[in-house]
């Protein structure tokens, strides 16, 4: 059992009716492995009432860079896999999460302070979101691409392709459903991703990474960094080998200005998804609403291929 679930139970050594539980070390997820931060740092994660849950790894600039290297290395294989295969892998994530739903419910409850039924509903939605996106994998090219009727003897076709390595600031509030809602639309089309998890609520993300690691998601396709958003986000926003960035998690992140991150992202013309909200405000949307395709299309390129026709 995780530390979360055992919180509040008797922990005293030698208590006759309880076993001393084995607690999990929460680490990063980079390149399919679970390293500690290279910085050797960790930070205290507490539940919604301020009680200690765990020491999470406090990711560093170097960890973020390592994650980008891993994501870049994984890109060709993941983007080059068949859409059918990617769809099955995403569906597999849902299957594995379903099997561990009690753990996710407990961690979401502890992190977000939700009542049990509400936490159950959130985890169900997070699982169902993977299923929804899984089904999109082998439909995107048909829905978003097609033949162009050019005025000449040419075969001319447009199809979507993944944009490359995507940096994602995961939502600060919704630690699991929000996270899945921003990661699944990135990877379904073949992008690889470096995620900065919710700073204060990182534990569900690490447990999700365990599900990813056992779901045939190739190492490096999803990389998760826990830590201080304000510290690590600028290095991802300015990284020259990152092609796009989703700033959803800039809302309510301590010391983070999404405008500054977008400014840094302009250096190599990253595709930027701004946080919801008006003006310079950033708000976290209601992730329980049914998504549309916009998060998918934000991380796609359209490639158009011409060839002459002739006898």
């Amino acid at each position, binding site marked *: 059992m995780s530390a979360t679930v055992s919180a509040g139970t008797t922990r005293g050594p030698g208590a006759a009716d309880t076993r001393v539980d084995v607690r999990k070390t929460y680490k990063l997820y980079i390149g399919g492995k679970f390293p500690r931060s290279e910085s050797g740092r960790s930070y205290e994660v507490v539940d919604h009432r301020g009680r200690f849950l765990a020491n999470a790894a406090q990711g560093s600039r170097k960890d973020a860079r390592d994650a980008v290297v891993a994501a870049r290395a994984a890109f060709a294989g993941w983007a*080059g896999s068949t859409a059918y295969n990617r769809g099955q892998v995403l569906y597999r994530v849902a299957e594995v999460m379903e099997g561990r739903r009690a753990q996710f419910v407990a961690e979401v409850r502890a992190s977000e302070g939700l009542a049990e039924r509400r936490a159950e509903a959130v985890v169900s939605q997070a699982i169902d979101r993977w299923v929804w996106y899984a089904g999109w994998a082998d439909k995107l090219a048909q*829905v*978003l691409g*097609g033949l*162009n*009727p*050019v*005025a*000449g003897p*040419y075969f*001319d076709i*447009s199809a979507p392709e993944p*944009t*490359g390595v995507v940096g994602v600031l995961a939502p600060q509030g919704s630690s699991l459903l929000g996270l899945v809602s921003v990661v699944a639309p990135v990877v379904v089309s073949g992008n690889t991703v470096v995620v900065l998890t919710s700073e204060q609520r990182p534990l569900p993300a690490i447990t999700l990474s365990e599900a990813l690691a056992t779901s045939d998601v190739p190492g490096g396709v999803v990389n998760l960094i826990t830590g201080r958003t304000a510290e690590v986000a600028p290095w991802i926003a300015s990284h020259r080998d990152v*092609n796009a960035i989703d700033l959803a998690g800039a809302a309510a992140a301590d010391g983070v*200005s*999404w*405008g*500054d991150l*977008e*400014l840094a*992202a*302009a*250096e*190599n*013309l990253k*595709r930027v998804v*701004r946080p919801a909200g*008006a*003006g*310079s405000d950033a708000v976290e949307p209601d992730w329980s609403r049914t998504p*549309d*395709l*916009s998060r998918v*299309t934000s991380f796609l*390129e*359209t*490639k*158009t*291929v*011409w*060839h*002459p026709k002739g006898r």
Partner: protein
Amino acid sequence: MATFEYAPAPESRSVVDIRPSYGLFIDGAFTESQGGSAFKSVNPATEEVLAEVTAASEADVDRAVAAARRAYQGVWGRMSGTDRGKYLFRIARLLQERSREFAVLESIDNGKPIKESRDVDVPLAAAHFFYHAGWADKLEYAGLGTDPRPLGVVGQVIPWNFPLLMLAWKVAPALATGNTVVIKPAETTPLSALLFAEVLQQADLPPGVVNIVTGAGATGQAIVDHPDIDKLAFTGSTGVGKMIARSIAGTRKKATLELGGKAANIVFDDAPLDQAVEGIVNGIFFNQGHVCCAGSRLLVQESIAEEVERRLKRRLGTLRVGDPLDKNTDVGAINSQAQLQRITELTAAGEAEGAERWDNGCELPAKGFWFRPTVFTGVSQTHRIAQEEIFGPVLSVLTFRTPHEAVAKANNTPYGLSAGIWTEKGSRILWMADQLRAGVVWANTFNKFDPTSPFGGYKESGYGREGGRHGLYAYVATGDAK
């Protein structure tokens, strides 16, 4: 062997009436500037001053944006798609009717050969309006999302290489989707946009729907920074594209950027060589190489490199460089003194870095801005002429041995706009097309454009697409989005 000489075959200039000076087209009429200055537009083939044009001030841009906002709120944003479409059909027809006039004016102001402005720029511009006219009342069928609706006032800044065509690429989709426009043509080629204002008047387009403000970088910056602009569309250099991206960071302005390129044109040993050589020539010498998607890096398979170079040089020897208005001219004038200097500087760097320089040795006119079709061989990937966009009639030749090597070299650039593949092997075309990180891939052809075909880049060649169903995304909001 006897060779045939070409007699001069100049297109008549009399069809065009250039005014001595132009104001700004704001709210449906030409108006005087408030605090702006004047500059001259020059014929790059003769250095003759063509007209005096207004450099719009911030106050002028503000007036133009206000007019566009009024037109959006009062007329255009609430007009039925069917009626919007009818205006666009009118514009398309007017461009067709006045095509000769536009073609001659474009060649005079830009320096491009009349056969290109006549056969490519102007007909394609009309086709863009015709294509988008049909979308205006069918947007809910375009698969853009639920409830597609306009963004509001769009600011557009366009380059000098295809002045009227880039205007059409920008204005047609913006109007079809119900937006209103403030557009700035390039400072060296404003005249076709100013003539286009007459077309708008003849079409009875409601005042303020399209506002045309001439000027240089400062005018463009005023558009980019204006707080009442909802969306920006820019075609031009990657450097300026990054400035725009920085300018709008932290705001809610949307942007599409169509920027530079350094396209690889890849020729395999089984390619049909005569066609490939024509494609290479078209790829880099079309429009004097002033093309963002130009095939400026020739990647040729090692086993046929000598043969391709020999045929290429022979073909370049027959290119006719000179008077843009001569119907037999293949390569016209470089658009400006500044651009000529940039080409001269980069080609000097090519020589200095060790590449072997060759040009076709043709005679050049005494006046005007000219550059001979030039080929560099022995180019390595680190040379500036293999990395930087020259935007002129200069081809860099590199070699490769395997398809993997060709892909690695082709993708070894921060750009990703276009690429070319020449091979008779179908499976190799499709594999290569998958591997190349570029928005447009031409296989056994090059530099083909069509209003139905999305155009735009990967990586630092910008974002967003223009043309086709995909180009509409840039101009609509859908679903719950504001």
